[in-house]
């Protein structure tokens, strides 16, 4: 079929325009869902929960910081930095009570076997963290302005850093998460009725 025949009718022109867009979008979306195409975003303003069966990270530090909620109020938080993180079976939920009942947003990624979600320059402002952790070359108690990561805390604050951090059974409550590069393999995003990761 000659291409010029397509452009004579509107339906043909629509098809001609829509088809490549559909192909490009699905390739791109597929890339995002596969973790091949990174997305970058940050969420803050309200506590939310993060869970992962396993986190493997390098370049870790943690120190005291402040999280700001949507009302502009400040809350003490522990700021954790991880240079490179692999998150297996990542789950992230935020839930809000509304007049219609509970409404939540749930993001899951890295659920494929051997295909974790990956984050670079991850910074988390958290209030609660649990699991079983193994650190390598850890230093506890160093001054927050001397930690071995690019982001540093205030001089005079208690801090810790390590070359690597592996956490099994990660459960976390955070005020904020941001990552320069987030590769969300097997991304799944859904609105929920308040279901949480844990």
């Amino acid at each position, binding site marked *: 079929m000659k291409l010029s025949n397509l452009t004579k009718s509107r339906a043909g022109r629509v098809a001609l325009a829509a088809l*490549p867009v559909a192909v490009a979008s699905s390739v791109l979306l597929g*890339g995002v869902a596969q973790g091949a195409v990174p997305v970058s975003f940050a*969420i803050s303003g309200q506590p939310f929960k993060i869970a992962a069966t396993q986190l493997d990270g*390098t*370049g870790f530090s943690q120190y005291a910081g402040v999280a700001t909620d949507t009302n502009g109020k*400040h809350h003490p938080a522990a700021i954790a930095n991880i240079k490179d993180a692999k998150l297996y079976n990542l789950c992230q939920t935020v839930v*809000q009570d509304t007049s219609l009942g509970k409404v939540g947003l749930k993001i899951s990624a890295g659920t494929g076997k051997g295909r974790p979600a990956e984050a670079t320059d991850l910074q988390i402002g958290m209030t609660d963290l649990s699991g079983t952790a193994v650190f390598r070359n*850890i230093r*506890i108690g160093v001054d927050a302005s001397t930690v071995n990561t690019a982001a540093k805390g205030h001089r005079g604050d208690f801090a810790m850093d390590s*070359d690597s951090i592996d956490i099994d059974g990660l459960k976390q409550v955070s005020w904020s998460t941001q990552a320069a590069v987030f590769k969300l393999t097997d991304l799944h995003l859904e609105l929920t009725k308040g279901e949480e990761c844990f």
Partner: protein
Amino acid sequence: MLLSGGSRRRAFREWHAGRPFVGAVLVVLAGLELLLSGPIDLGAFADTFGVEGIPDMQLAIGIEGVQAIVLPLALILLGLLSMWQPVHRIFYGVIILVISVYTLSGVNLGGWFVGFLLGVIGGVVIVSWAPREQAAAAPVPSDDDVPGDRDPTVPAKSAAVVLGVVLALGGLQPMSVAAAEADCWDPIEWIDWVDCDEASPSPSPSGSGPASSSPSPSRGGATDDPAGDVVDDVTDGVGDVVDGVTGGGDAAGGAGDGTDGGAKDDGTDKASGEKAAEIFSDDPSAEGLSVGYVCDGEKKSVTLPMLPAGEDNTHTFSLPADLRTSDLEISGIRSIELVSVPVTHEAERRDVLKIVADHVKTPGFWLKTYAYDTADGKPTTAGTDTSAGYVSMDGSATMYISGVNLGCPDFGKIAEEPPATIVAWLLALSDAQIDLVGATSDVQTWSGFREQVWGDPERPIGEGPEAGMP
């Protein structure tokens, strides 16, 4: 434009029939939605549309924050332009499509898909739109703003659309598109374009940088002595006042034994203070390990005198954290000495007891850290509260301890039956609270830990079942 008897509505209909009006409106809406999905919180965004109860989440996009503003603005502009200059609709429409597709990666997943869909549909409508006279082959009164030569030849339009394909895919691979264009420029086989390009349609960002980002600090001059298993060092460290303590040349490997020191004994006799004076110094200027205790509700502090062993500037510490453990297991001790370390809180340097061992295990671990800051103009104290089933440290396990806080020790018993070594004495302090200035090790495991932030008056951690004090 002459409105010869026609109503305003008819004039508008003619005006809007002369341009891809619907598509342009959709694109403008797409731009607005994408703009609002950026660093503006979703809740407020939903409120403006009358949707209540969407979580107040702020969505920003880090380094790419600029394109989250520029791309939506470009969409709005292109939507308006395609309305004002319908003759350029294909050019505008193709760019709209490219930008809309790219927002999937660049602007919060295409404004959570809404802006992406609006932009793509609007872009398709604009590109596929044609003036009525072309489709119907009938002359229609032309608008003033639309030049007469607006009918592009069909091949030219095809090329434009194919260009759109290339650009749209190029949005995926900005690096490869330049090379790919030359090889793959085949309008008829455009659907196979992806195959033309050998590269997989996935840019691989340089995400995984080298792991060793941190200059690992050189460790421990004190651990140089491999034969330091013997606690000879202790005898150097502990002051000669403590004959019993210093006398022991015991191998510290069996550090768990021989701890008959009744450090924990609530029964205090009147002479305990005097007995204590035989071992401990109440001179505040004395150098050594600070020992705090509370007897009869009175806080006191004495010093276990030790000879300083010099400075250790490997790490800069801040302020001590409170450490409690149900037990303290130390094996393979390499050295114990009193060193002066740099600190940043309230003083320049602090004397700490530095213990280097192969292995340290602390069951029933509980650590409370402190941070001082101002929030909303008021000074606040906050920190972390970490409990763990156990914490084990292996490989150059080093603890920096600035003090020990006891309940009410039976100093008399300590003086009568002094423990063989200071480590033995420390090990006996099962319910002591240790002022932990720092701890380093090659490998450290926190088993079943939970770390919480305390100090937020609105979110006290004391409410949870496992929260707060151990």
